[in-house]
């Protein structure tokens, strides 16, 4: 029960009035970010990161992770009320959430969505509490080849689990790696791929990429569609909440299944979106009222929301225990750790106990506070979406520009942000996934370091990747995932696959 002791110490760290205030501020900002078009979890946290440079790391991560929870909650609001998924993983929530809102049951749908989000996150945090220290302890024994094989697994699983052309996933990923290698080489100190431009010495910061790709790119996409918000209004009063809560226990089996799917998929990168779709599909198949899914079934909101939130939370496990983030937002949080002078990875659990357990404790509290905040303030946030796009759009572009500038106080970064915005728009339209690019940009240097160290140990022999059972099995798994598009084609030749009925709706992310 060492973990429980540590956890209670964590609660003691978190429970200061200042931290509690930051938590509420974070949640409110997060919901706001989740609701606004063009701002999402990843770029929202990226923009607000510079504001935390002067805070102490524990307070800073509490606020930033609460922004993340808030953004996860916020995605549900736009899905249910406006039929616009704020984040890719809330697409599945629109299937039943919006029909419910059309029938005047918006309050019920939102209460169901928020509560099941909370349940999913809670189950995932419990899992993190007990699993993360174990994984970290295990990973302490890792050497460079093991770490590189885990990086390999992370990136290969994008190819294996992703949707769309594997070449596009690969291209997006290697663009990230290529951009990451621009600038000063960490080992030899040489300038790499700058082609004589001194401004490029700093390299491309992934925060700039995140702000541009997700922020500006999203605005351009919304603009193309000529977005006009027309939403349903929602009133949540205690009576509706209470009545919905009375209905929810009936879906316990769905909730448990969805949480498990979410946790499993969340640990692998880019898992929240497939998790929500998978959970929705399975719930539809197994539910007694499955045939009515899509017409406004509460269970159809519970399933994807629980899974998405569980996955979003579980994505923090590899970030904390291994230093390898499972989602772009987790990547931004990891970037934050580096800026505050903390070295992410297994040693974090040994050297920065207060920080780690403070963060885990804040996950419990943050989600609880988040649930209460969103249940009480939905009408306020829904009204924000009614502000016309021609006011929102320039303000968001200004916020993005400020965010990009504050990262390094460099004017050139604002230009890069604009460039990344155009790239983001093109890639979104051409179905290139953006998450691999961001993750490769964040992890590029570290993956390269572990690769070079492994090669130094073996004097250039690739066989070191199979030198012991552990590293060998991780590498093999990675290669299987990398070749999965080919393997699944071969399997399809032998046995025709079942048709995935939501394949068309699932976004590439």
């Amino acid at each position, binding site marked *: 029960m060492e973990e429980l002791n540590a956890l209670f110490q964590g609660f003691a760290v978190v429970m200061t009035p200042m931290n509690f205030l930051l938590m509420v501020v974070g949640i409110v900002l997060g919901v706001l970010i989740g609701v606004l078009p063009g701002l999402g979890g990843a770029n929202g946290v990226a923009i607000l990161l*510079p*504001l935390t*440079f*002067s805070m102490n790391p524990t307070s800073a991560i509490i606020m930033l992770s609460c922004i993340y929870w808030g953004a996860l909650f916020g995605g549900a609001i736009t899905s249910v009320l406006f039929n616009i998924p704020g984040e890719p993983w809330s697409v599945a929530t629109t299937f039943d959430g919006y029909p419910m809102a059309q029938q005047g049951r918006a309050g019920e749908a939102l209460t169901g969505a928020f509560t099941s989000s909370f349940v999913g996150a809670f189950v995932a945090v419990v899992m993190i509490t007990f699993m993360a220290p174990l994984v970290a302890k295990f990973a302490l024994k890792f050497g460079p080849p093991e770490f590189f094989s885990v990086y390999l697994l992370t990136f290969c699983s994008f190819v294996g689990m992703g949707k769309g*052309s*594997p*070449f*596009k996933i*690969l*291209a997006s990923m*290697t*663009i990230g*790696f*290529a951009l990451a*290698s621009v600038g000063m*080489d960490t*080992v*030899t100190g*040489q300038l*790499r*791929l700058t*082609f004589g431009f001194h401004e490029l010495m700093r390299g491309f910061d992934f925060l700039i990429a995140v702000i541009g790709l997700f922020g*500006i790119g999203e*605005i*351009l996409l919304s*603009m*193309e*569609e*000529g977005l006009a918000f027309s939403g349903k209004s929602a009133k949540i009063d205690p009576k509706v909440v209470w009545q919905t809560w009375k209905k929810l226990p009936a879906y316990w089996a769905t909730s448990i299944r969805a949480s498990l799917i979410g946790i499993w998929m969340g640990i692998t990168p880019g898992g929240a979106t497939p998790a929500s779709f998978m959970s929705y599909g399975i719930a539809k198949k197994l539910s007694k009222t499955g045939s009515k899914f899509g017409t406004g079934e509460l269970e159809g909101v519970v399933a994807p929301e629980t899974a998405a939130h569980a996955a979003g939370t579980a994505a923090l496990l590899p970030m904390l225990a291994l230093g390898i983030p499972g989602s772009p937002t987790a990547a931004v949080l990891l970037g934050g750790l580096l800026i505050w002078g903390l070295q992410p990875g297994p040693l974090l659990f040994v050297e920065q106990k207060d920080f780690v357990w403070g963060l885990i404790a804040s996950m419990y509290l943050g989600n609880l506070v988040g649930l209460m905040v969103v249940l009480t303030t939905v009408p306020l946030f829904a009204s924000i979406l009614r502000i*016309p796009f*021609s*006011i929102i*759009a*320039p*303000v968001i*572009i*200004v916020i993005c*520009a*400020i965010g990009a*500038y*504050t990262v390094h*106080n460099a*004017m050139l970064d*604002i*230009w890069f942000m*604009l460039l990344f*915005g*155009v790239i983001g*728009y*093109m890639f979104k*339209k*051409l179905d290139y996934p953006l998450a691999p690019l961001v993750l490769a940009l964040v992890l590029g240097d570290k993956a*390269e370091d572990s*690769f*070079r160290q492994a*090669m*130094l140990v073996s004097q*250039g022999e690739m066989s070191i990747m199979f030198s012991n059972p552990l590293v060998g099995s991780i590498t093999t798994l990675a290669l299987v995932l990398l070749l999965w598009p080919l393997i699944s084609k071969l399997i399809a030749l032998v046995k025709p696959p079942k048709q995935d009925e939501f394949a068309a709706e699932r976004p590439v992310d």
Partner: protein
Amino acid sequence: MESHEGERTGVATNIIDAIVAILVIIMGSTVIYGSRKLGSEWTSDGPGAGYFPFYIGLILVISGVGVLYQALAGKVKNTEVFVDRESLGRVLSVLVPAAVYVAAIQFIGIYVASAIYIALFMIILGKYSWLKSVIIALAVNTVFFMMFEVWFKVPLHKGTYDMLSFLGY
């Protein structure tokens, strides 16, 4: 989305896809070239600075070729119009002013440029009245100014011609 099939004119999606793939290949070749120059070989003290980027460039070229093949010779070609004239106009109506705005930041600083940008965006694209637009633009930027310069003490770009220097920040 479209009601009149005939009115949608523009370049097919798979052509754009191919162009982007060619750009990816060019980028990959540049990376390979750059890392060859840095030394992608094994040096006396281990792998050279270009060792890892070299392979990255190689994969980049391979995936670019793959996308190019799928776009032009694949079984399912996406010949839908990539973006029609009207949508393109809407996108450019945001992108071009944004570029002008970023250029303006360089000279007159973030606050002044932002205020002008928000106001003009609202007046021209949003068809709001002058008064309302200017009030909102000023209000938003006052909030930002207070937040960054005063409360969080994060100085933002003031530009070559700082018009707000009288404020003392």
